[in-house]
């Protein structure tokens, strides 16, 4: 999981390679944004593989509990809702950043990070509850593939939170307001992507009966 962290950090930090705002690229598009979208395209194959593994194994519960026996739909619905709303606060942060409004950017970024942390906290709670109901990582193919898939997603959210907190710190150091707008936008893209992955996970894993 640490690997994911390193990889994401490098790609997102890559955006910092524009020391000097104004770029004249062949397509007129920012290198950083193009790089980020390429990376997100690649991430589709990563999560696709994890989701497929879960799909293949969701019914193979062995002696352990079945999905329907452990899933707590009201609880997960609430945390899904929290993550969805963090996308709204993220987009508001990006919007403020483009207006050069560092104060509001900071505010919305912080709220986004808090919502993200709530989601991850919920996931930790959920994992603990499942574990107490007898569903360990190695209990069954279902449990292993479930923990790997949602765990990977959780790591992504956590990486996102770290980036959000870091950008708050970096913005405090920067002298010109709005100079980190593109970085905020970049983190925003990453954040929304993590959200859309959860949209799929919530539906396919939690709502569709195995």
């Amino acid at each position: 999981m640490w690997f994911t962290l390193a990889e994401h950090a490098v790609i997102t930090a890559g955006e910092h390679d524009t020391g000097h705002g104004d770029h004249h690229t062949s397509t007129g598009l920012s290198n950083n944004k193009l790089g980020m979208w390429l990376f997100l395209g690649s991430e589709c194959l990563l999560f696709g593989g994890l989701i497929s593994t879960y799909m293949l194994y969701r019914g193979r519960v062995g002696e352990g509990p079945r999905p329907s026996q452990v899933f707590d739909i009201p609880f997960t619905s609430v945390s899904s809702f929290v993550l969805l709303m963090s996308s709204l606060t993220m987009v508001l942060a990006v919007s403020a950043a483009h207006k050069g409004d560092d104060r509001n950017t900071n505010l919305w970024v912080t709220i986004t990070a808090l919502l993200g942390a709530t989601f991850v906290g919920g996931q930790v709670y959920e994992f603990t509850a499942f574990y107490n109901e007898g569903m360990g990582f190695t209990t069954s193919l279902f449990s292993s593939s479930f923990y790997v898939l949602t765990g990977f997603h959780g790591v992504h959210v956590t990486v996102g939170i770290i980036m959000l907190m870091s950008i708050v710190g970096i913005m405090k150091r920067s002298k010109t307001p709005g100079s980190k707008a593109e970085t905020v936008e970049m983190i925003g893209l990453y954040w929304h992507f993590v959200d859309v992955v959860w949209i799929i996970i919530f539906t396919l894993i939690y709502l569709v009966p195995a």
Partner: protein
Amino acid sequence: MAIIERPPSTEVATPATPSSSLGALKRPVSTTGWKSWVFTVDHKKLGIMYSATALFFFIVGGLEAVLIRLQLAAPNGKVLNADLYNQMFTMHATTMVFLFVMPMAAGLANYFIPLQIGARDVAFPRINAFGFWAFLFGGIFINLSWFMGGAADGGWFMYAPNSGPVFSPSHGIDFWTLGLQITGIASLTGAVNLITTVLNMRAPGMKLMRMPIFTWMQLVVQFLLLFAVPVITVALFLLSFQRNFGATFFDVASGADPLLWQHLFWIFGHPEVYILILPSFGVISEVLPVFSRKPLFGYPFVVFSGAAIGFVGWGVWAHHMFASGLGPVSVAVFSVATMAIAVPTGVKVVNWTMTLWGGKLEFTVAMKFAIGLIVLFTIGGLSGVTHSVAPSDTQQTDTYYIVAHFHYVLFGGAIFGLFSGFYYWWPKVFGKLLNEKLGTWNFWLMVIGMNMTFGPMHILGLQGQPRRMYVWTEQRAGEGFFNLGFWNTFASIGSLILTVGVLLFLINIVITARNGKIAPLDPWNARSLEWMTSNPPKEHNFDSIPTVSHLDEFFHRKYQEDANGQMVQVKTAEQVLKELEDNADAHIHMPSPSYWPIIIALGLPVIAFGMIYSIPISIVGGVIVLFGVYGWAIEPSTAPDDDFDPPTTTKDVVHVG
């Protein structure tokens, strides 16, 4: 970090004054010595480092191959025991695929893509440096397993149950899994970087359909990497969790489907095949026109067939699994798709042949290797088509026939293409010409050696000799023409000839470095932009960025059509270069060297060690990565203008990257 005052002097590298980052570490500023290499972000230095490292691993992988052939040279071979033999063929394949061909192609891409599209560097220079170090450390990490209880021994596609703890109790496969994870990160970041570079950093007028074919093929390759690497990442993670944390993803006894691994591996693995071959296709598509004195025949067809291969390459993976009982429908579908993919490949062979047709052929060593590729790859391609016919494939699966096939396409194809590139581009990179006479010996010994080694394997395979068999006995060798013993010995002799051939290349490098001929500016009368600069290129590549108006821009600057429609030389390469120099950009600020790429990359193997031996070590690695990332994020990629020596405040500063 170069500042060019007008007029440009030969003394390009003026170091910047140190800039502090993170309040603690000053920027590295050395322009000479080892520090100028270790902390560099220059795409050319990184390209050389990629290629040099890859060449080292080529020797390692080659020695492993020789040991394999020595073991099989005579009945009851005693060179290796069964266990060591398993490690040897697994690591031979792993090394050749992941640590030689891929990074060698990445090295060429790094060096030549920016030059070919008229850029001064890649889009993300620091990511580029990080990618190289991640590849190097990943490669070392995988090979450390030799000294820590044995290397991976499950075969390069690591099927279950061989990959499980029961059949492979040593840590070899753990090293393999985590090491490939690290090189995978290198490939993925490289893909993001190079795609962005090709799309965004082209010189004015360099439309996509004016790009050299090498750049085009690399673009396709980078897209394949971008989408294929995450698939193997998933597979490797699942395997890691199975081996280290007790999950049972591929354990049949626990109700798992071992075919899941096969699917994930080959969804990655088949695009991977094209990742290996397309760069070489690109190289010879540069070499053939130059030494035929003709433009490439059907440029758009070569481009689109390359893209088509990249696309269809995603729909054929299950032909590696015909013997696994997929069911008739799947087998039929993948059979047809596999036959279909031969078409764009055939288009390329036709285009190359037509390029040669009627040309003023000049048989330099680069040209010989390029023609060698066409012939040998076609043989391998045709035996490949025989695999697409499922009934015949079922017969051939896991026999030496398969080994013969993929060595014809990978050695005769990918490696010959790379060697063609070595001889073609050596003067560009090092300013000296490789010895052509020695090169010719190098070429012929490789051709003879390779055909002697891999040719008989067709016979061995069709006679039923299984792949990965560690020993053969006289009693079961058979008689007459189809005597397995004879052909095994024959192949082993061939492998020694092949070794001598490769050795001649290494000797050639040494001789050239000592007293090679200094290369003229344009030794081959070449066509593309990378030749429109000095040998070796200056740190900033081009004094002024050229405006491109043709495919084969450099050629069209040297030659123009006269009244009779004949192409006649109007300028020498020196004159073309002089024009660029006369319009040189005044101040060029190149991306600055950085400590952070190597620091982050250094954290990765530490994390991996921890996953095998003790989690706290992983945490240390994670902290290193995190520290590096923060340093990276806070440090601007190019030092501020006032940080240069002398400080520049003028508006005409050109920033790169």
